[in-house]
């Protein structure tokens, strides 16, 4: 997987940004590569030279097909990948401090306090045998000098803030007594507990139904402005800017709207992605029932992948050179993309002819 991205200006919606932090990005990921190796099988490169930055107050979204490495990137930034059998290369600088190779106890001091993560599956991400209150207070007590009683009061406050009714009762309940949406809120409360400067949300709404999804996204957006610093989402609908992640070094980069479309295009066809990614996402003026055209195959089809464009085996436009070397990331309008043979860049016409 590879992603590079061009950020646009910080959104006006985010009110509090620290002037000093504008100079230096909060998070700088440079050529991050993650390789899984297991004895007896060829090593698998899950993340290949990903670079992106998150500035204070900025929302950044990573989008891509499943299996393209979004979660692995997030886990690598948090240092949560297993140590055995995993090689992490490149650089992850948090607030100017290099995290790769940082010792475990220094990393533990950062996690939960300075950088926090909301996980994908609220049903399994909470400990079933510990009360929700305890799961919030333990992070408060770990990172802040706070008494037990104060921690409980704060946990109740946090639950209220993330919109859990009857918070006082909920702190003494166990995860199985809460609905999926509430559990996700608890996870968000845990992540926000120590006012982290960076919040990573790894598809925080995948496991929830649509109305709850919208609520959770609102909540995270609110958290972004309230808690002043960067958020990094794995959700196509919630980035100021972002990059499309592929199982290979080709991407479309650009500010918010473009990337959203690109994200849909990833689900549509590779060819339309190159065009500017506008073509084949669902459109209101299309007749009902018109089938979408997804990229054939899945990222795992192209593995093990060593050189050339990651999409070469799956792209109708691919030619010889696509299989030989990796295209560079080049600007294209307000975005940038990696492709030797992009289609014409009029999105409207392209979209029509394609559909």
């Amino acid at each position, binding site marked *: 997987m590879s992603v590079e991205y061009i950020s646009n200006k910080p959104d006006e919606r985010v009110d509090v940004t620290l002037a000093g932090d504008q100079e230096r990005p909060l998070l700088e990921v440079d050529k991050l590569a993650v390789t899984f190796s297991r004895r007896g099988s060829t090593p698998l490169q899950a993340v290949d030279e990903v670079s992106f930055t998150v500035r204070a107050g900025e929302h950044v979204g990573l989008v891509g097909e499943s299996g393209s490495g979004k979660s692995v990137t997030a886990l690598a930034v948090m240092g949560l990948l297993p140590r055995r059998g995993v090689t992490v290369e490149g650089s992850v600088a948090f607030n100017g401090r290099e995290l790769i190779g940082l010792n475990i106890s220094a*990393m*533990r001091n950062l996690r939960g306090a300075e950088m926090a993560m909301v*996980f994908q599956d609220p049903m399994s991400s*909470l*400990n*079933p045998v510990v009360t929700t209150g305890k799961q919030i207070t333990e992070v408060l007590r*770990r990172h802040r000098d706070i008494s037990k009683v104060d921690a409980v009061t704060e946990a109740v406050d946090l639950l209220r803030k993330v919109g859990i009714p009857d918070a006082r009762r909920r702190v003494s309940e166990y995860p199985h*007594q809460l609905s999926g949406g509430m559990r996700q809120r608890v996870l968000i409360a845990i992540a926000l507990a120590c006012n982290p400067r960076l919040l990573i949300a790894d598809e925080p709404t995948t496991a929830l139904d649509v109305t709850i999804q919208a609520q959770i996204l609102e909540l995270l957006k609110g958290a972004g402005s309230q808690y002043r610093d960067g958020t990094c989402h794995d959700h196509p609908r919630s980035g100021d800017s972002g990059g499309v992640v592929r199982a290979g070094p080709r991407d479309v980069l650009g500010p918010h709207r473009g990337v959203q479309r690109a994200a849909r295009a990833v689900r549509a066809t590779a060819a339309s992605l190159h065009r500017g990614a506008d073509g084949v996402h669902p459109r209101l003026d299309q007749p009902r029932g018109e089938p979408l055209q997804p990229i054939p195959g899945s990222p795992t089809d192209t593995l093990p992948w060593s050189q050339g464009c990651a999409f070469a085996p799956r792209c109708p436009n691919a030619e010889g050179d696509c299989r030989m070397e990796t295209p560079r990331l080049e600007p294209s309008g307000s975005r940038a993309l990696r492709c030797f043979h992009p289609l014409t860049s009029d999105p409207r016409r392209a979209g029509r002819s394609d559909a």
Partner: protein
Amino acid sequence: MLRFVVRRLGLMVPTLFGLSVLLFFWVRVLPGDPCRSLLGQRATPEGIARCNEVYGFDKPILEQYVTYVGALMRGDFGSSIDLHEPVLDAFLNKLPATIEVSAVALLFAIVLGVPLGYYAGRHQGGWWDTTIVSGSLLGVTIPVFFLAILLKYLFARQLGLLPTQGRQDARLDVEHPTNFYVLDGIITGNFDAFWDASLHLILPGLALGTIPLAIIVRITRASVSEVVHEDYVRTAEAKGLTSGTINRRHVLRNALLPVVTTIGLQLGLLLSGAVLTETVFNIDGVGQYLYAAIGVRDYPVLQGFILFIALMYSVINLLVDLSYGLIDPRVRAS
């Protein structure tokens, strides 16, 4: 909670009743009979008939059963045919020895087994893991009596550190109000007696505890290695908690359920299976008593003992189920 306990205790009644029927007929189906063993090879048919009359074995089997259950209801387990003493008295005399050895064995197995299994599970595939797993395999396969003799030879004979026989040094002048010798030492304030009784328990405890130890190691390891890959452990890591908190609160508590089940089952096995150890270490417990009773088809003793073991299993299982509720709130709800 209370209702749950009462209901479970209530369910034990039909279980034990059914078992009493089964075992009553089962011991009588065994080849041989008590009067023949009692009177020996030269018994005359008249003698045997007379003996059967005395013990009531000549009556219809259903009538015998009704008499037996009637006596049970009054708390009368009958008397040993061979030794002529009440079964209950014999048990109260000999059970403490067995319980002491079993408790030490189980304690040893838990105290060593849970941490070892935990460590192996957390460092799966590593050098220590391999060592611990192969060690536990050895522990399961080595016969108890052989290990017992080996231990005696090594610690008692070669090193001269520990006593090899019995429960207490015969030269000590000690009172035994409860027959739990360790406890008696504490109650009577006799430290020497307490210490001596404790030393006597070490080798039998080790010998008897190896198999439960090996099993607990394996179950703990399997359970832990499953739990460490759970999402909530990753959440705990993402909170930046210390490894101590993660291990105790997030891994161990969740990994404990199967371990507790195993411990319960092992305790039942230990109480009924200490015969070999008791023989090798010459401990006067129920094991030896029962062994003798099987030899002479001592019906009342066999029935009493099997009923007792069934009762122990039921009670231990109930305790295990109750402990589930303490460990896992989801069990409490249902």
